[in-house]
């Protein structure tokens, strides 16, 4: 036993009892305060979050200084270097994970399907109909002209391809209201119920929905037309 006494160095290199007592008292204080703050709802929100994390870091500092005695090794202090570099990695891993996943969560969480459609149309430029992608229509395509005059629609039938356009031209002095579907069964086309075309103006729609679609004049249910959209 005297051997052990001889070999170990109880002097300056390692802390003695007082250092442990100080560390213990400090660590108790740094535990009780955040616990009290949380349990009694003393402060709220971001302030409490920052406060308790601050106390955790203080607590860690106490443990490292008074119990692990880091920093008391002789120079060069590889232990301290290694600890600091590890701490850097820890910060990167934790902060970056939270940051990245928060953004991912923010961008990937739909509130409603309408929000998704809106986001896709506005941010991504992908036209949507009922939540289904229609494919963006870019470049030059054929534009068909449909003339509205009195009770006539000419031509009353158009064969077109996806992404072609139809221009409804109003040659009358009054506005025309073109409704999709039949009078009895109104439908939507490209998300629209009705096209309002004021006097002597035109309105162009992009054919982004496949199939045969009917339309009629709202003021005159017998004035009808249709167009068939086939894939390119």
């Amino acid at each position, binding site marked *: 036993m005297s051997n052990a006494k001889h*070999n*170990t160095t109880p002097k300056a290199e390692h802390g003695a*009892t007082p250092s*442990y007592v100080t560390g213990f008292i400090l660590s108790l204080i740094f535990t009780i305060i955040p616990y009290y703050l949380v349990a009694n709802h003393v402060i709220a929100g971001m302030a409490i979050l920052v406060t308790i*994390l601050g106390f955790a870091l203080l607590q*860690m500092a106490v443990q490292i200084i008074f119990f692990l005695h880091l920093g008391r090794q002789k120079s060069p202090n590889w232990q301290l270097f290694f600890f600091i570099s590890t701490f850097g990695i820890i910060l990167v891993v934790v902060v970056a994970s939270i940051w990245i996943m928060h953004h991912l969560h923010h961008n990937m969480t739909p509130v409603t399907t309408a929000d998704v459609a809106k986001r896709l149309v506005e941010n991504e430029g992908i036209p949507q109909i009922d939540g289904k992608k229609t494919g963006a229509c870019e470049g030059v395509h054929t534009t068909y002209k449909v003339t509205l005059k009195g009770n006539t629609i000419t031509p009353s039938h158009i064969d077109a391809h996806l992404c072609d356009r139809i221009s409804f031209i109003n040659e009358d002095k009054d506005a025309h209201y073109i409704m999709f579907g039949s009078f009895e069964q109104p439908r939507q086309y490209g998300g629209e119920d009705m096209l309002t075309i004021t006097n002597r103006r035109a309105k162009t729609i992009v054919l982004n929905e496949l199939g045969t679609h009917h339309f009629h004049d709202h003021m005159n249910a017998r004035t009808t037309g249709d167009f068939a959209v086939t894939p390119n």
Partner: protein
Amino acid sequence: MEVAEHEERHEPEYKDRVMFGFWVYLMTDLLMFTVLFAVYAVLHANTAGGPSGRDLFSQPMALAETLILLTSSFTAGLGMVGARLGNKKQVLTWFGITFALGLAFLSIELYEFREFIHEGHTLATSAFLSSFFVLVGTHGLHITSGLLWMAITLAFVVKRGLNVHLVRKLNLLSLFWHFLDIVWIFIFTVVYLMAFIL
């Protein structure tokens, strides 16, 4: 005795190398805990319709665990003071208390886990509970291995008395124990306290 004399000459350098090696282990272990903390921070809100931390955790129990572990870290430190003075009785007393406190801590943790599982809140309930059980469970496993290590080392102290090797082992053990205390402080803060404010 001759062997001891021989080792004595190389002791400081050897001791430094062992210490540094063990420190490297502790830091890499800390990185593993870091990843588990990051996973918990990301997944803690994903309760999949199951209970949240606020519903499950008991604040007084978490405080009791923390105080027990803090005290055990302190008593391990006092045990080390005894070891450096070559005081076998002091070593056995303080490390004995540390062991008992560690066992008490582990019992509370296992009781908590048993309660959760008994109520049907298991590892498979939600991402939140998966990350909780893995993070806190990994710490619990470290405590368990620390207790085993302590029991074996103390048995050697009783049998052979304090020698250079055992003092060194006790030193590493106390480092390990303080390290687990630091990890627990963050579990206490991030898992138990934050559950009640976020």
